[in-house]
């Protein structure tokens, strides 16, 4: 493992940036129409718990990455198989984010540019970041991530004159089930994806802060989601928010007098790049550990190329992307995000309670 260290603040910003990531383009909470805020609250609360669980796994297996934990807890063979699945999952996640990013750019600003070009150029930047190592990624987050809330606030201030505070009403018009569905989506869409951070957690310099940092970042991300949702719903109304393709983008276009679209794109690039960088870093590092090579940088180019190709090939069109994100991703993710981690937590707890057992295995 790389001997780099990141500070608590850097980890906080990384997780927050990761959670914003593509959520700025696709907001799963919109499935619940004007009750989205309820979905965000529920999803956020459960998501925070989930992150705390991931942090506990990391704390119970100090300075070990996901691949090593899997090997330790499930034995070498099963552990390696699950690790391969996880690496696939990270690569898939990275390509989905690439595609989200590319489709968004294509739809909103660059209708004539080929999708491949946009994604490939983006991938070059991401590769540079990944090869620079986790320490540099941490430092980069300190400069970039603060832009996200600042830009969100700027857009909100610009739109201050357009609002309708009754848009929330009536509460629970369609019953509770769309809310539950949306919050489940939200749980697996940004929050559960933080399972990637099990590859980053061992780099934290002060381990005692891990739980605090991860829950705090989940909470602040929830706060910003709520803020953005309130802004969007007061501006767009419940009907439009359900129909629109890219909700926050539509909001930013509505600012009277000036078009802040580029500002929004910058926001997206920051969030998106952090998310892809972390996924890619986790994937190449996992691959590196799985094979037992000495330098993860050897894999970056290959994995990045694969991601670019996969991201173009994975959906036929943008509607398939939305459909996948809303209906399939949830079930595809549950084993990776909830089932296996909970098993890991359980096994780790048992091993911890019975240290003699641990020794006999070794």
């Amino acid at each position, binding site marked *: 493992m790389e001997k*780099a*260290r*990141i*500070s608590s*603040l*850097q980890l906080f910003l990384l997780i927050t940036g990761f959670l914003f990531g593509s959520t700025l383009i696709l907001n799963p909470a919109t499935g619940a129409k004007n009750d989205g805020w309820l979905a965000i609250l529920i999803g956020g609360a459960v998501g925070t718990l989930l992150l705390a669980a991931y942090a506990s796994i990391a704390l119970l297996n100090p300075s070990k990455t996901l691949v090593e934990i899997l090997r330790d807890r499930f034995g070498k063979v099963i552990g390696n198989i699950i690790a391969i699945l996880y690496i696939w999952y990270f690569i898939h996640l990275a390509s989905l984010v690439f595609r989200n990013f590319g489709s968004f*750019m294509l739809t909103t*600003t*660059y209708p004539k*540019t080929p999708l491949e070009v*946009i994604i490939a*150029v*983006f991938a070059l*930047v991401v590769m*540079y*970041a990944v090869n*620079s190592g986790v*320490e*540099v990624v*941490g*430092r*980069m987050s*300190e*400069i*970039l991530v603060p832009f996200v809330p600042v830009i969100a606030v700027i857009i909100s201030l610009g739109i201050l004159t357009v609002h309708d505070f009754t848009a929330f009403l009536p509460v629970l018009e369609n019953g509770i089930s769309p809310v539950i569905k949306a919050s489940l989506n939200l749980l697996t869409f940004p929050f559960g994806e933080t399972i990637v951070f099990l590859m980053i957690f061992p780099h934290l*310099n002060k381990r005692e802060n891990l739980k605090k940092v991860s829950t705090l970042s989940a909470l602040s991300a929830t706060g910003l989601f709520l803020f953005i949702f309130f802004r969007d719903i007061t501006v767009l109304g419940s009907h439009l928010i359900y129909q629109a393709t890219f909700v926050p983008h539509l909001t930013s276009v509505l600012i009277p*007098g*000036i*078009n*802040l*679209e*580029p500002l929004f*794109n*910058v926001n997206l*690039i*920051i969030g998106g*790049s952090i998310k892809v960088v972390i996924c890619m870093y986790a994937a190449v590092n996992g691959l590196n550990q799985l094979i037992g090579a000495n330098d993860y940088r050897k894999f970056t180019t290959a994995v990045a190329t694969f991601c670019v190709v996969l991201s173009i090939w994975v959906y036929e069109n943008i509607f398939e992307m939305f459909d996948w994100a809303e209906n399939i991703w949830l079930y595809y993710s549950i084993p990776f995000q909830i089932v296996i981690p909970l098993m890991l937590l359980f096994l780790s707890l048992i091993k911890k309670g019975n240290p003699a057992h641990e020794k006999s295995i070794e």
Partner: protein
Amino acid sequence: MFRKIKRRLRVGSQQDNIDTIYTGIDEPLPRNIERVKERLNEIFSECSDYIQREIVCGEDGSVRILVSYIEGFVDKKILNQDVVRPILDYFSSAERQDKAKRVYQLIKECIISNNEVREVESLQQAVYKIVSGDAVLFVDGSKSALVVGVKAPQGRQVEEPDTEVSIRGPREGFVENLATNMVLIRKRIKTPNLKFEMMQLGIQTKTDVCICYIKGIANEEIVKEVRKRVKKIRGDAILDTGYIEQYITDNRLTLFPVVGNSEKCDKLVAKLLEGRVAILCDGTPYVITVPHLFIESIQTSDDYYDHAFFASFMRVLRFLALLISNLLPAMYVALVSFHHTVIPFKLIITLAASRQGIPFSPFVEAILMITAFELLREAGVRMPRPIGQALSIVGAIVLGEASVNAGIASNLMVIIVAITAICSFVVPPLIRATMLLRFAFLIAANFLGFLGISLVAVTVIIHLCRLRSFGIPYMAPLSPLTATDLKDSFIMVPIWAMITRPKILFQEDTRGTVGIKRQEVDKISED
């Protein structure tokens, strides 16, 4: 392949030096003065500036002394007054016939009236002293020679540097003479903790290079690292600190300066007091300081002499200028060729009117104008000053006014290049980096609009985060965030509120920061 070339270069430089005197092993001084004379004449053959004078005195010429020096390098008056005359007087008046060893001792201890007398034992050292401007006395029958420091003052007077102008504060700048520079520093920091470590670099030039720091304030690790890197330098010549800078820098492939340089004494002293290490070099007024961080580029010495409010405002302004000079032409190109919708309606009419009849695309237009500006600037720098001014007038009028009238460039483009040019001069340490980055942003903007600009910007930020200067992250204190050091970043607090020294210089990765409070340092130095 690079390695091969490197090896060949190294072999080549070694071969050059085989027959020079310096690579040989030190040979002891011959006791016989005739032999010394012979060797010296051999070594200094065809050196017309080499002078040697033999003094023969005492009874029946038993005392024989050889004085060797380089013409013009030593002060002849002082040499005569301090060395030659006392010797002649002493041995002519007193009727003494001493043994050779006694003569040597006598000359060393009671005859020469100069303060700076040293001894050398080998011929090579003696030759080295002669070529560095000292006078060397060889006494017949003695196995060592005397070196008398009678170097004549060389070079110009201390004056205000042209390159760094400040509105307020001391106007003294460094000069080419190392000794003068050291005095200029010592004069401002009156403590024995101020250390000057001397060494000679350059196989041919044997330049005096001096590492300067304040013990107890500078991070020992950094001092050690500087020492290590400076000692590793192998090369024929060190003509300027720029040579040293290129040898010791952490990242050789970067546009950004990771080693700082200055010509101003007060600025350098302030850097030393912050815990930085300076490297002085004989023969150049430029002194380099390490570690050099990004934030130092927008700091000026004026900031500290004026009220913190104005200083903070100026710093934000400077940073803004930096952004503008990098991004403005690219933004313009992106707006005009990709994002018409972003431009407010009234402006777009003006813009369309000004671009009417221009044969070039905005990108070509921008590249042409910016290249023209860079050419003008370079020509202005290289020309003698009076012609340089004429050149800038011609450039401004002909290129600005006439190109618009001729329909080659749009009015707006001229305005944009002008603003860019003005802004690029606001942050002098980054002028070169900005010059190239501007083109990178322009090209990106031409291909991908704002997306391209953002991606290049992110790349530059990653690059900046990657950089380290002597182990200290280049973007500190912004990233990694060091809260207490933000006091001297974009927002500056008044001098009386700066209680602690910069912590960033004491950082070991992010693992834990060791900051030292000012009081603690004082305590250490008192002990």
